[in-house]
């Protein structure tokens, strides 16, 4: 496949309070970010189940973002974002060993008032996925 023509599909699980709000504000501020980023609303990044991440890849995603509130007290559900971070860390490893690659999953922290960060993170991530290209099946076995 021609790399230039590769249009990735990226699922962004956005927590309702912060990341979703930041995405909204990006729109309100008429800021643009890659259209490949497709937002799925969750109440809290702590709701994002490893199953959801894996299923997104199963359904054809080339990258998955989990976006939650800022660290250190930003989470509207106390520490759901920290739980999500822990899961994302473990999942990256899992994705490595099933040949998807942990680089295709990232967690970001932002507040509802950070549309610029939302744009920055999603743009940067989309670039990364474009670089990585389509999902292959290189087994990463020790």
């Amino acid at each position, binding site marked *: *496949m021609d790399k230039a023509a590769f249009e990735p599909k990226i699922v962004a699980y956005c927590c309702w309070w912060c990341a979703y709000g930041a995405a909204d504000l990006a729109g309100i501020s008429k800021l643009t970010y890659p259209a490949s980023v497709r937002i799925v609303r969750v109440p809290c990044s702590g709701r994002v*189940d*490893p*199953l959801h991440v*894996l*299923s997104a*890849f*199963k359904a*054809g995603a080339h990258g998955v973002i989990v976006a939650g509130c800022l660290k250190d007290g930003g989470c509207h559900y106390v520490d759901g974002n920290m*739980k999500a971070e*822990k*899961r994302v*860390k*473990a999942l990256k*490893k*899992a*994705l*490595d*060993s*099933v*040949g*998807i690659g942990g680089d295709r999953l990232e967690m970001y922290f932002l507040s509802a008032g950070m549309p610029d960060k939302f744009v920055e993170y999603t743009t940067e991530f989309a670039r990364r996925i474009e670089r990585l*290209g*389509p*999902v*292959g*099946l290189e*087994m*990463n*076995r*020790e």
Partner: protein
Amino acid sequence: MTVMATLSLSGDAGCHVILASLHEKLLGLLEPHELAFCQILKDSRDIPDHVDLTLVEGSVRTENDRERLREARARAKILVAIGSCACFGGIQSLCNFVDSQELMKETYGAAIAEAKSLGKNLPEVLPKNIPVREIVEVDFQIPGCPPEPDEVASCLGAILRGETPQLSQKNVCDECKKKRGGDFEAKIRRLTEKPSDLERCLLELGYICMGPATRAGCHAKCVAANVPCDGCRGPADLKYDQGVAMLDALIAADRETVSTYSVATMSAMYHRYSFATSVLAKLLERKDRR
């Protein structure tokens, strides 16, 4: 009179051993009916054209398995998957991590792997090991490795009476006699360590006990023998991914070892019998590169 058949695909025949171990009950179940095809237990070469009830043991690994399964389905009114190989792909699905070409190459050499089979007399090996449900429609599943004899008898009895069989809807922990204290040890323990308290819940002690994510009905026998449940009966509710549910819980419990070992290693712990049905296995099938 009900015409019955059993079909063995890729598996270890343990389900037939369970059928045989029903002894008098087996005779009772069979007596008014006809066991028309059962390669292991009686002389019979072909599945008859019309079968009322076919039990399928084993998973689909070869072209031959697939053909025989499709044929069996076409000839059966009711098709029941028996055992965890048939229901979930079974333990051999852990090989789905490895490309079948590579498996063949390592086992039989490069030339044979190229040909996908050892010779014209042997069936082609499929790229992966597949549960029955993914090839044909299944009317009922009796899980377990092996399935519980009593459960097999009661399910067959129910089907023969025209009823819908019932399996437990609960998890193994429901039947487990071990005591829970409420706190979990963060360390993952392996079987090489003896449980410090034989009365205590193995999951709490740090062992990867699949009891919480596994369908009850086995009386938690393994745990009663001080060995963690390895999930042989699959999830209680088939819409859940047994291993991922456990993976989540282990990550949650800060069990660091979960991320220390590769998924291939850990899948044998939390997906031992159901890997083929897991979302992880489906990920392996993704090949969008040309």
